[in-house]
C-alpha cells in the first residue's frame, strides 16, 4: 500500500481546513475540506486507505483539543458508512451522481457531529447554509482530487 501521497494529501486537506476555518465554522462543519477529501476517497478507494486517512484526521483533531473521542470518531464513521451505503445505489464514478452521494453523506455526518457536540439537531437555516457551501467546496476540490488521483497509484481510479 503506497501511502506517501495519501498522507501528503490528507495533510494538505487539514491545512485547507485551517485556512478556511471561518467558512467551515459558519457552515457547521458540512463544508469541511478534510471530510470532503475523506468522502472522495471513500467513494472508490479501498478500506485500509480510507481507515488510514480517517485515523489521521481523528488523531490530528484530538491532539491539543478539547474534543472527546466519540465527538471526533462519530462524524467520520457516519460519513464513511453513508458514502459506502449510498454508492450501492448510485454510481460513484459518475461526475455528477457522486455529488448525490457526497452531499447527503456530509449532511448525515454534520447532524451526527452537532448531536454529539451540542445535543441538538441543527436547524434548517444552518443545514441550507452548510449544503450550498459544501457543494461549492466539493465542486472546487473534486476536480483537483481527480487530477491528483494518478499519484495515489490505485487501480480503482479510472485512467
Amino acid at each position, binding site marked *: 500500500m503506497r501511502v506517501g501521497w495519501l498522507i*501528503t494529501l490528507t495533510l494538505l486537506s487539514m491545512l485547507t481546513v485551517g485556512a478556511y476555518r471561518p467558512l467551515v465554522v459558519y457552515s457547521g462543519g458540512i463544508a469541511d475540506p478534510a471530510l470532503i477529501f475523506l468522502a472522495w476517497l471513500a467513494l472508490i478507494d479501498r478500506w485500509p486507505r480510507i481507515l488510514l486517512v480517517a485515523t489521521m484526521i481523528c488523531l490530528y483533531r484530538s491532539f491539543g483539543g478539547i474534543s472527546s473521542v466519540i465527538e471526533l470518531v462519530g462524524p467520520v464513521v457516519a460519513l464513511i458508512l453513508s458514502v459506502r451505503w449510498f454508492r450501492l445505489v448510485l454510481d460513484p464514478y459518475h461526475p455528477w451522481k457522486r455529488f448525490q452521494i457526497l452531499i447527503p453523506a456530509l449532511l448525515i455526518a454534520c447532524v451526527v457531529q452537532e448531536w454529539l*457536540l451540542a445535543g441538538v439537531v441543527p436547524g434548517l437555516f444552518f443545514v441550507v447554509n452548510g449544503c450550498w457551501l459544501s457543494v461549492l467546496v466539493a465542486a472546487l476540490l473534486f476536480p483537483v482530487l481527480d487530477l491528483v488521483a494518478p499519484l495515489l497509484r490505485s487501480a480503482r481510479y479510472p485512467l
Partner: protein
Amino acid sequence: MKRTQSAYWAICCWLVLALLGYGLQPLVSSSRGDAEHQILLEQALQHSLLLESENSALFDRQRLLDRYLSASFAGSSFLLIPARMTPLLDPAPRRSSARLDRGSEDGLEIGMGVIGASGVVGKIAAVGQGWSRVQLADDPAFVIPFVDESGHAGIFAGGPEAGYGQPRLRIDPIQIKDALVLRTHGGGGAFPEGLILGIVADARIPVSDSRILLSRALHTSQEILVLSPILNASHR
C-alpha cells in the same frame, strides 16, 4: 507522464489556495466582526456597564482582582484564581478553546468557571500540570443558565458561529429583543449570579435561532480569573 505533471500542478494550485485562505482570514474575520460589534455597541450605549466592561478588557491582573473582589458575589462562595489566557485554534474546527498558564497544582479542576474583565469567558475543559484548557463561551457544547434584565431565566448555548451564542431554551417567558443584555443565572455552580454573558445581536423566531454576541475579548490574550467553588460544611 503528462498525467503526473497535471497532478503535481493540481497539488501546487491546492497549496496556493490554502495559503491564500490563510492570508485572507484576518481580513474577513476582522471587518465583519468589527462592523457588527460597532453597531451593537451603539445600540447598547444605555447599558453603561456593558460599555464599561468592554473598555476594561485591558485591565491588568491586579485591577481585575480588585474589580471582582469588590463585587458582592466574590469571596462568598468562590475563590478567585488569576491566570493568563492565550487563545489558540482548536484542531477540531467546530470547537472553541484557549489555554491557561495554570493547572492542577493551583487547584484548577474541570468544570470551573472562567471570567474576564468583560464577563463570562468559559469553563475549564482539561487540566494538567502547569496548564489547562478552557472551553470558550462560543463553543457549541458550552451550556449555562442565564437571566434577562427582568430576571427571567433561560438556557444559553455557544455557537453556532465563532463569537456568538444562542438561547437554547426559555425557562420563563422571555421576550428576546435586540440589544438585550443577558447575565448569568447563578445556577449550575460554575458562575455566580449577575455576570455579563452577552448581548442579543439578532432576535429571531424561533427564539433558539436568535444570536447572542459575546465579548469581543473572548478570542484575545487576556488576564482571567478562575472561579473555584468554596465548599462549606453544609455543601458536603
